[in-house]
């Protein structure tokens, strides 16, 4: 991995383009190789349509989250990484608390990075799997809009069968 011959590195160096991503929340800047950043379809579209300046502002994503996104993109831009390595690396990235994961899934959705969206969604699902609905409400900031009777009815109705299963 790290033992790529020196001359090869030098040979590709002049062509390497970099992009600067800037979090609009805390103004943190990240310099990344273009091919790493292009895993984001949103950024790719911008670059392809010549919209990208030297610094790409990334709204509503904090520097902390952007760092995770870039880590993911770097891992997946490495052609010599094995599937197992990537799996381990992904697991490391999503080993975060549920609120960070929610920010991360929004970032992955906004930047349109399919793989990251997938692992993060799965991790969120795993984290809420055994939680009672009250906790789920709190995590997602959802208001209970059922009346007590309705809530009881929803419970009773779905007790035995998963209605709507094709």
């Amino acid at each position, binding site marked *: 991995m790290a033992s790529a011959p020196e001359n090869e590195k030098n040979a590709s160096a002049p062509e390497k383009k970099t992009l600067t991503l800037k979090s609009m929340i805390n103004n943190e800047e990240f310099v990344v190789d273009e091919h790493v950043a292009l895993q984001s379809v*949103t950024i790719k579209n911008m670059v392809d349509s010549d919209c990208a300046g030297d610094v790409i502002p990334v709204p509503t994503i904090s520097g902390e989250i952007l760092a995770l996104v870039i880590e993911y993109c770097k891992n997946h831009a490495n052609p010599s990484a094995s599937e197992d390595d990537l799996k381990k690396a992904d697991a490391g990235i999503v080993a975060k608390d549920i609120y960070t994961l929610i920010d991360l899934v929004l970032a992955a959705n906004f930047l349109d990075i399919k793989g990251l969206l997938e692992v993060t969604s799965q991790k969120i699902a795993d984290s809420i799997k055994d939680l009672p609905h009250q906790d789920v409400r709190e995590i997602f900031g959802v208001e209970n809009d059922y009346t007590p009777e309705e809530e009881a009815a929803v419970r009773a109705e779905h007790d035995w069968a998963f209605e709507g299963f094709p």
Partner: protein
Amino acid sequence: MVLQCLTWIPHLWDQLLYSVTIHKNGFVRPLPEEIIIDILSRLPADCVLECRVVCRKWLALTSTPYFVEMHCKRAAPFHFVQSVYDSVIKNELDLFIIFDGVKKDKMIERTRAGYMHLKRPNMPLLYGSCNKLLLFRPRFDGLMYFVCNAVTREQITLTSPVDPGMLCGFFFHLPMKEYRELAVRKEGTGFRYYMYSLVGKLGRRIAAFSYPPTSFVTPTIVNGALHWTVEHKSENEDIPPCTDAVRMFNMDNEDFRSMPHPGKECHSQSIYEKMCLLEMKRKLSFCSIYARLIDIWVLEDYENWYWNIVKEVDGAAVKMSDDLHCFHIVTDYAKTFVSLTKI
């Protein structure tokens, strides 16, 4: 080019809309619906049920056919095995759920059939499955059928809408989004089918046919139709013609059709008893046992009823094949009845 640069705007707008729900852990921005759907579709069925209690929107999001389809695709498949041989000795029914894709030691979950109140000799037998619902029938003739949710272990009792009658199909009717049962009973010299909707609790008469469908296994559902092999009539040993051996019922237009079974004509009652239909890679397949030899056919061309023989197995060495989705083996009914159904 400037216009293209405006691609950020809808994104920004979306983000603005998720602005400020203040939460004790900081800001929780509401997730877009498609992400909520994606996350919920990754949950096991019982957790989805729990999440439906969260709010009305989540109930609505998890009740669409799109969600249901996505959930079904993602749900880990599992096999369900019941051991009737053991239960005859121990006077109880052993049920095992075998989960795919989990660690070996956690693969098998043994679940006593505590929720089945019928005892010997009326122990229920696994009869078939529809989605994650398992259908049990009484070991001997009777009207009580059970549907159990394999995930939540809830159960309901089904009774045949006609008395005397026999349940011969349980399926999910997609256009109406409801579970339906199909029952059959002898009327005159033929057999009359009845359709029963679980939601409306309404029954109605539909077509008649001269031979009953097999009562051992549920119909195989492919291409929007139920398929059975037919049985001979018990009282006069009248063997159904081989050209009418496979009975089909179209779920949408409720049409019945009869088609020939693959292979050579047999005209033998004992062969008829050992025929069964299966599903293999979403295609209808057919298994017949001549002596100890098991032939497995696959219906390659549904429209033209073109069958292809794919396997010839020596019954003595029969082993489960991975690509079978649903397989019922009846070796000796009195001794061993193994149903292995992928649900």
